[in-house]
């Protein structure tokens, strides 16, 4: 079965539903919610089609579609979409998490429901578009447009300091992305001024029709890389994240942590590596240092957070550092691990925010110290929280482990110091997550929880698919990893083309400054 323009359908269906919502003036909130939910579910079902019909043996773009968008005599901007093994699961993650985010707000958002739903759906369009776009301008448009609904989500439905958080979020991310815009423009003119197509420009680089001077490549890498680093967020560009997370409503946090952060690491893999492999190689040690610092720093700071959402936010800094480390190992397993870890982090952190949201709905506080003994009143909830916690700390058999072990294997092969330090993050992860779990759920019965109740049917429906997916990836990750292999190999081949032949260059190059080369197999 071949569905024409399937990626466009997936991308724009939510936006279309959002417009429908805005155009229905008299519908009740309930109706609106159902329409939004079914719209996002439809997008999810369509994205399943991608998963089933994806050809795992190919590293090429699939389900490609390309139509002229803005046409000039000298060049055109194309509406060019496509997915490969790198973006496939991120698209699916987006369509998977959005219905859940909508469902999570079923009861908690009662004010201005219509614009809320529209924002979430528009956000979905933006995110899907980011993962599918293969034209630099199109990518940039999605990248930026997606900020606006997120800004409103934080600013309108957020917590007490929402205005500060919203403006900080938007300014911080805009600063990075606008510099990327300059990078895109430069790239465009350097590539001949006739195409914004990523595929075409990479092809030119591969053919040798286009070559960078090392200075050029360095600055271009930074222009793109900064935008991505802020989004990831890579230490030390992370301070927008705790604020944004804490103030965002549950659905916003879920999407923010679940999908938005991945856009940064995705961008690195999709753009920075194939376009600027030389700079990527040269900067890899430094980026790895930042990543490792982020892993430990995020974990240590997470350890002492009194606010659950802040804790999870800092843990994201730590986890995303691991993903970055995996990417810059330039090993097949490290990079595959990074890709699957993006999905994993989306699931586990998304789920954590859902769970924290459920607590917040009931108690209207996120201070860990205000809780204790919740397991007495809400055993099912406690169990679900435990599973998610364990996934977040990479317990084998759950999804997080698959990603972490692959990343560790990759980084250990590349550099033992980094690998070891990153592994220490596993200890710290257990410390802060279990600390939180213990303080919330264990302990003597707490009269404040008297009215807490256990989670209801809606919330179970919400958690079940996530937990199921966690187990699936944890136990049988092959269907996921297999679909990434070819694309990862393609990227790596591209990166390695920048190293001098023989490969020894590569290994020495990657060692951190100051440490002697280590033997790798």
């Amino acid at each position, binding site marked *: 079965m071949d569905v024409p323009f399937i990626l466009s359908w997936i991308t724009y269906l939510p936006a279309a539903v959002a417009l429908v919502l805005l155009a229905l003036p008299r519908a009740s909130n309930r109706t609106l919610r159902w329409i939004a939910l079914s719209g996002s579910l439809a997008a999810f079902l369509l994205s399943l089609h991608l998963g089933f019909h994806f050809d795992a043996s190919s590293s090429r773009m699939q389900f490609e579609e390309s139509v002229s968008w803005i046409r000039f005599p000298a060049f055109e901007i194309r509406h060019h979409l496509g997915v490969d093994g790198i973006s496939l699961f991120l698209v699916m993650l987006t369509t998977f998490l959005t219905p859940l985010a909508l469902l999570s707000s079923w009861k908690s958002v009662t004010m201005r429901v219509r614009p809320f739903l529209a924002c979430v759906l528009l956000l979905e369009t933006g995110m899907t578009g980011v993962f599918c776009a293969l034209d630099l301008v199109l990518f940039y448009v999605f990248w930026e447009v997606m900020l606006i609904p997120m800004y409103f989500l934080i600013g309108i439905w957020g917590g007490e300091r929402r205005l500060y958080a919203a403006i900080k979020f938007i300014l911080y991310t805009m600063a990075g992305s606008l510099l990327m815009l300059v990078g895109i423009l430069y790239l465009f003119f350097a590539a001949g001024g006739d195409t914004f197509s990523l595929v075409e420009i990479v092809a030119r680089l591969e053919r040798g029709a286009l070559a960078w001077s090392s200075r050029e490549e360095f600055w271009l890498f930074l222009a793109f890389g900064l935008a991505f680093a802020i989004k990831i967020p890579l230490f030390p560009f992370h301070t927008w994240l705790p604020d944004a997370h804490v103030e965002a409503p549950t659905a916003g946090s879920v999407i923010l942590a679940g999908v938005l952060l991945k856009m940064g690491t995705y961008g690195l893999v999709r753009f920075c590596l194939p376009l600027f492999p030389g700079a990527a190689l040269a900067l890899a040690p430094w980026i790895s240092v930042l990543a490792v610092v982020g892993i430990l720093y995020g974990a240590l700071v997470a350890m002492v957070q009194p606010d659950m959402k802040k804790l999870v936010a800092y843990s994201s800094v730590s986890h995303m550092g691991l993903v970055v480390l995996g990417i810059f190992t330039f090993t*097949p397993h490290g990079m595959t691990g990074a890709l699957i870890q993006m999905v994993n982090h989306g699931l586990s952190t998304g789920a954590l925010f859902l769970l924290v949201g459920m607590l917040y709905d009931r108690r209207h506080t996120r201070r860990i110290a205000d809780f204790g003994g919740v397991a007495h009143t809400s055993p099912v909830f406690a169990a679900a929280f435990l599973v998610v916690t364990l996934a977040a700390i990479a317990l*084998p*058999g759950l999804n997080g482990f698959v990603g972490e072990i692959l990343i560790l294997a990759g980084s250990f092969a590349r550099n033992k110091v980094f690998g070891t330090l990153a592994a220490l993050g596993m200890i710290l992860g257990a*410390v802060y997550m279990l600390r939180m779990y213990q303080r919330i759920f264990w302990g003597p*019965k707490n009269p404040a929880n008297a009215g807490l109740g256990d989670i209801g049917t809606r919330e179970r429906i919400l958690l079940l698919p996530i937990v199921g997916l966690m187990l699936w990836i944890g136990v049988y990750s092959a269907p996921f990893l297999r679909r990434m292999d070819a694309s990862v190999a393609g990227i790596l081949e591209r990166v390695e083309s920048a190293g001098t032949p023989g490969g020894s260059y590569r290994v020495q190059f990657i060692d951190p400054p100051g440490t002697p080369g280590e033997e790798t197999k």
Partner: protein
Amino acid sequence: MTELLWLLPLVPLAGAALCGLAGRRLPKRAVTIVACSASGAAFVLALAAFFELLALAPGDRRIEREFFTWIAAGDFTASAGFLLDPLSAVMALVVTGVGFLIHVYSTGYMRAEAGYYRFFAYMNLFLFSMLVLVLAGNFLLMFVGWEGVGLCSYLLIGYYFDRPAAADAGKKAFIVNRVGDVGFILGILLVFLTFGSLEFGPVFGEIAADSAFAPPGSGVLTATALLLFVGAAGKSAQIPLHVWLPDAMEGPTPVSALIHAATMVTAGVYMVVRCAPIFSRAPAALDAVLVVGIATALMAATIGLVQTDIKRVLAYSTVSQLGFMFAAAGVGAFSAAIFHLMTHAFFKALLFLGAGSVIHALSGEQDLRRMGGLRRRLPITFWTMLTAALAISGIFPLAGFFSKDEILWSAWAGGHPVVWIVGLLTAGLTALYMFRLIFLAFFGEARYAQGVHPHESPRSMTAPLVALALLSAVAGFIGLPAWLGANRFARFLEPSLSLVRRGDAPHLSHALEFGFAALSVAVALAGIFAAYRLYVVRPGTAGRIVARWGALYRLLRDKYRFDEFYDRAVIRPVLRLSERTLWQRVDVGVIDRAVNGVGASMAGLGGVLRGMQNGLIRSYAAWILAGTAAVLLYLSLFRN
């Protein structure tokens, strides 16, 4: 049966799923049936597998089954596959056998608990994880079981989660184990890096072929072995990662018996033995194992002397015995380590269950100082525990005698006389603290609270005691020392250890070996006698000794102050670093302030501009004039 090997761990998993998901709505009876039949079925399956293995020729006793590819990325592949060989068969038998007995015991012990279903779900899940651990055919799958049992341990220690102590202990156990696990993981990665595989077969095969990547004694092998041993030390509570085990006694007593005595904590020993091909080619690492093992044995035994909580005495005893096992591995006597592991599983599980029976009878009292005189009230408990105490003390012909003696003898024969002496001393101490426990609990006058009427436990609890007592009594005979006949146990294990590199053992006479055995029995008897003098004949003597050696006593009572040390040297500095330095100072004070500072400085610039915009026409005109001058100047100055 081996075709159905996958069923072996899956049966308890199904039990766990059933109990965990539906248990709240099922009657207790149903939970009992599900849980016990799951563990019983697992035991039967393990027996079947064992006999099937036995039916094969010794050289063929190695069955590998691969079910599916679990992780595959690049050249990194890990399959979900099992390896059944004598070593894993013995472990599976011990795990399921003791596990089954403890399940049965728990139906009685936990009867009154509200979280009955939860308890059994965790227990079955534990069996599943433990079986994955011992049956795994590669390092990574082993790690799955490894962390899985850690999780169950965490959950079961924290079973009484409303007690802060239990909750803390669970967390402590998990985190300390994580420290070890990271070592384990790094070891695994080093293995992968060196040999390009994670499967036991290829890796050990290459090592045994004295691979050029990692020749015997090479740094890589030593590093690998040491990292793996860090993992083992974490799981098996060896110095310096032993601190979690005594605290783990906050869990229900059957848990202590199953997880924290008989099975999980011995996983470290199992792992070292499984990786014997590596360890035996890394002499430096082996020495480390030996030193840590024997030091732990002695240290824990000394602490055990002064503990007053019955379960803590047993916990330190466990730590001590685990140290023995590592010492055995350290001197290269891998089969002796497993042998002791097995016998220890029997008698230590028995001791814990007996202690549970005592606690049960005394309505939760765990302090030895408030027991006494229970001999007649709890006859079955007393006799079975006495058997176990004799066994652990190494009295001929009980199981502990054979296994411990083999370790001591191996140490001497392997050229480690100091280890032998320390081991002997520890054996004496073992007898001393064990019989201190027996005498304090069962002899003398009753010191428990008025109104408590101890009575013997129900049959569901005593039956496992008796079964274990029998095993403790006779299990030793499968591993007779050379001067008594053939060590069948060692011979059975042989195929699993065929890749071990062995030095040439000096030929020592059977007479010498017999003499040493007699000596160790004598030392044990001396220990028992000392305990008798101190706690039965002259009960006041202990107090006088304490008074005289106050400092030493306090040191022992405070467990050498490891916890305090960690608290001060690690936990608090890290927290302080995180809270004050990283969070408040770096994150808020530097990074975020820098970010906000950019904004503030722009707003500051805006403020300055605001001031310049003073509303006066003439000053605006002055600006225009100045600007004109600047433009003219600029144009004339920068003319090329």
